[in-house]
């Protein structure tokens, strides 16, 4: 369960989030769309405690994220996964080691168990063959998928995806979208997906919100939002539907 209440955040006097309200129920998937630079990544960074709001509340599982001590935050993050927009792989570790990293560092699992878990998530993103490759030897889309595998390997209860299908070919995007939905259904993960793709929103989203001027313009089921007659929403999403 994620709750955002009146969240406000400015950078150098520029308001990025402006009294944003929103909730994501347990097991639900909220898709966030919005123009580039509207603050979608900033929103995700608030939820995982990388940024603190100037005012307002960010609650995850009932805990106020900005008020947690470093240890409490670390404990909370063990239940959370985050897919970075850029992948953010550790450059001197190969794909397998990158995915194994959170297991090696934060659990007591044995090497065999770790290897089999890593292979399972790498298979999920169809990268079994690239396990030995280093980030510099992977394409942008492949790095993104390794990042996804790394976010999933701990089987978090809450997962935040920053443009999971950006930079992937249509077939791979469809596969990733299917994987995200499957994870949500099988593991009952609570998720927030930032995306620019209507296809992705329709496949994975229980609800869709459009972020602009620091708050959600509309919120509803993806179909409701697509059918909404708000001119701004039509203008933004209509351009994407073609």
């Amino acid at each position, binding site marked *: 369960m994620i709750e955002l209440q009146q969240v406000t955040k400015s950078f150098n006097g520029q308001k990025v989030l402006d009294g944003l309200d929103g909730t994501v129920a347990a097991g639900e998937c909220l898709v966030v769309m919005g123009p580039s630079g509207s603050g979608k990544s900033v929103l995700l960074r608030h939820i*995982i405690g*990388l940024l603190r709001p100037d005012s307002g509340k960010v609650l995850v599982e009932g805990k106020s994220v900005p008020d947690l001590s470093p240890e409490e935050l*670390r*404990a909370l*993050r*063990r239940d*959370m996964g*985050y897919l*970075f927009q*850029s992948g*953010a*792989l*550790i*450059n001197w570790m190969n794909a397998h080691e990158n995915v194994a*990293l*959170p297991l090696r*560092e*934060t659990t007591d699992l044995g090497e065999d168990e770790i290897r089999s878990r890593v292979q399972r998530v790498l298979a999920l993103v169809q990268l079994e063959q690239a396990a030995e490759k280093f980030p510099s030897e992977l394409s942008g889309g492949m790095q993104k998928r390794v990042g996804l595998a*790394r976010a999933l390997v701990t089987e978090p209860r809450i997962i935040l995806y920053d443009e999971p299908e950006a930079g992937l070919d249509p077939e791979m995007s469809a596969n990733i979208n299917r994987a995200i939905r499957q994870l949500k259904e099988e593991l009952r993960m609570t998720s927030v997906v930032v995306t620019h793709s209507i296809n992705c929103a329709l496949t994975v989203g229980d609800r869709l919100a459009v972020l602009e001027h620091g708050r959600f313009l509309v919120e509803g089921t993806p179909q409701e939002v697509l059918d909404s007659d708000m001119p701004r929403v039509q203008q933004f999403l209509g351009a994407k539907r073609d």
Partner: protein
Amino acid sequence: MNPFTRTGAGLLRPAMAKAGYGVWLATATLGRLPHLRRRFRALLDYTYLAGVRTTPVVLMVGFFVGMIVSLQVGIELARFGQQESIGLLVAVTMAREMAPFVTCIILAASVASSMAAELGTMKVQDEVTALEVLSVDVVSFLVLPRVLALTLAAPLLTLFADVVGILGGGVIAVTQLHLDFSGYLHNAREALKTTGELIPLPEDLYVGLLKSTVFGFTIAVVGCAAGLQTSGGARGVGETTRAAVRTSIILIIIFNFFLGKALHS
């Protein structure tokens, strides 16, 4: 606030914040020492990188510094007909001052900069943030092995510099001061035999090694702290690297004075 105070405060506040972070990082690193077993592989890797890769430079520079000291002091001594004690002076000067100083300046220029650049790049590419999000302890994972590696490598390299420096001094003693080499070496060895009161080791030697241990630790902490505080893309990494070298050299010189004073018996 008048313009002077404002400028001063504007310059000092970030500097104070950085110094504060450095001190925090140094303490945090020492607090992670129990994690050493898990970081052993990384420790070996970084010791290799910091130590073995800088050895050739340290050997060469150490040799020349030994020659410089021998030449300068030898000429003066010869005026008083005292050139026999050149071995003693070279050995003591190298062990106590020149070897740790020169070695650590080299380490500051090569290792502090590379640590700052590496961690700085990781920082601006969100890799450090990713570690935070994955609940990985950044100090234990990134900083501890680097700091420890340099803390171990610095005295070791200093010892190498001691040896080649004394040899370099010997070359000058033989060619310029017309002494014989075995006499020179004997003189040098005798000089280093004086043991300290506290530790039963040659005093001049361990003072130098102790200093370089402190310098090695300082250089690595400065390099890592600078790297982890980088912001602003590639230009930020460049600025960070420069600041790391500058700060660590200044600190080495200041610490050298105070340690030298404190360890003087």
